[in-house]
């Protein structure tokens, strides 16, 4: 059965006030279109979990969607500080819960595997472990040595952008795969946005590339350019100019409000956003083709 609906319908149906959201993607495939739609729908009191909050959570926090962030690296990647999340933490306006990258994704891995917690080796850097009571220690019953454990993270909703999916939600992802698969399996509901909706035959031509199977997907939304200003491997490049620009915009409440008015509230959906970006930006971010050598699955 087709799960294809509009992104606006998907957010309205599956994202509720107070939910814990994991908008996945490590630098790559960040689902900005979905973040903007959540802002437009005025959803409140979200707990926003992501290894790197990135600009998407900076914008959602600025728009008043969040009461808490869970993260492991809070910066504007390759640029500097993430001003809005940072200043709200510094002034006590935003709750936070912090891990290292490995601690964060180990939580997701446990959640995805249906385990209550997962162990990691010790690192001897215990300050964060003392500040965050979710970090605990247990004895390895085999060696008797201490290991560090973190509890499963099971978000209410994962939002994952992919290169292509069929209408059932079987999705191909390539390039940096970050924590896409783990976030999807760990969450109760999964919303996919896809650059392309393809027929089943395309997906079945390369089953090893299906990182997310349709059985865990609730909604499939066709949203080209959904990851801008981040990127989609093979489709368009990261808009580094915008990442630099956000460093300036995010320093004042007025310019953030003006940005949200123009680029989020001022457009109906991602199609209008892309149209508004214009051909120059799309040309600047275009990438040259570099195809892989096909593999032979064989006829059996």
């Amino acid at each position: 059965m087709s799960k294809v609906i509009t992104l606006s319908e998907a957010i309205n149906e599956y994202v509720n006030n107070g939910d814990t959201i994991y908008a996945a993607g490590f630098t790559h495939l960040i689902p900005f279109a979905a973040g903007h739609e959540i802002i437009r729908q005025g959803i409140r009191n979200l707990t926003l979990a992501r290894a790197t909050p990135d600009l998407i959570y900076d914008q959602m926090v600025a728009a008043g969607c969040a009461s808490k962030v869970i993260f492991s690296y809070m910066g504007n990647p390759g640029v500097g500080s993430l001003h809005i999340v940072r200043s709200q933490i510094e002034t006590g306006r935003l709750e936070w819960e912090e891990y290292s990258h490995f601690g964060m994704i180990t939580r997701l891995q446990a959640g995805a595997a249906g385990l209550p917690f997962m162990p990691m080796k010790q690192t001897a850097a215990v300050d964060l472990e003392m500040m965050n009571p979710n970090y605990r220690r247990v004895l390895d019953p085999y060696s008797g040595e201490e290991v560090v454990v973190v509890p499963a993270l099971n978000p209410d909703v994962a939002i994952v952008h992919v290169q292509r999916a069929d209408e059932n939600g079987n999705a191909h992802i390539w390039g940096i795969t970050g924590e896409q698969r783990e976030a999807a399996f760990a969450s109760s509901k999964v919303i996919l946005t896809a650059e392309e909706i393809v027929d089943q035959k395309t997906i079945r031509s390369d089953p090893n590339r299906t990182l997310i199977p349709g059985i865990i997907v609730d909604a499939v939304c066709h949203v080209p350019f959904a990851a801008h200003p981040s990127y989609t491997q093979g489709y368009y490049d990261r808009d580094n100019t915008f990442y630099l620009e956000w460093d300036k915009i995010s320093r004042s409440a007025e310019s953030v409000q003006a940005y949200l008015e123009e680029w989020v509230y001022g457009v109906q959906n991602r199609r209008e956003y892309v149209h508004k970006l214009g051909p120059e930006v799309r040309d600047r971010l275009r990438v040259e083709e570099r195809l892989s050598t096909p593999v032979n699955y064989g006829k059996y």
Partner: protein
Amino acid sequence: MTQNSSFTSPELLTINASRLLRDGDVVFVGVGLPNLACNLAMRTHAPNLLLIYEAGVIGAQPARLPLSIGDPTLVSGAAAVCSMYDIFALYLQRGKVDVGFMGGAQIDRFCNINATVIGDYQQPKVRLPGSGGSKEIAAWANRCYIITYHQKRRFPEKVDFRTSAGFLSSRSERESIGLRGGGPQAVVTDIGIMEPDHTGELVLAALHPGASVEQAKANTGWDLKVADDLRLTEPPSQVELQILHEELDPDGIYIK
């Protein structure tokens, strides 16, 4: 930095860091100067360096200067790509990484690093980005190197927060915990190179051409000791400078 040096700080940092890498090393790379140092080493004395990135890329051969840790140029032409869980678990925790590069706002006398907070954790004066991969890299890579500018505020006696472990309060304290990684090996600055002594304390081990011991002491927040066999680093060569400026960072984004 030094007024009588004809080299810029980023040149000195990158070139001296690159020389610490050995051919065949598996290196956990960050963006910016560490990335340049690794790519420089690959083009000079260490052609068989294997670059791995925390985004899950193994054997990257970036065709352009990567501007973020997850730049798509790291993927195109790489030997392998895996999930973030796999890169930290199968590669780093399992013990497949020789070298890690670290950075941070504060580095203390025993090379513990703070990338989390200045002031109190709950009521931060300055909130920094946090650990990212560094908590585990510092513990589990065989050798760690730090590249940073030599300024007093960056080198306090004690860090406000230990984001990642150097030698804690002594080499024997780190050893007693039994971490698989050997810990910090060197801190490359624009004045010289600091290395841990037998107790784990960072001492001045080398000076760049034109820099002085007084300068190093004045820019360090503890009473910096000087190694008995204080060395002088070789000045950057024409070949190294040319590769950096013409091939690796032609737009001068990191190397001025």
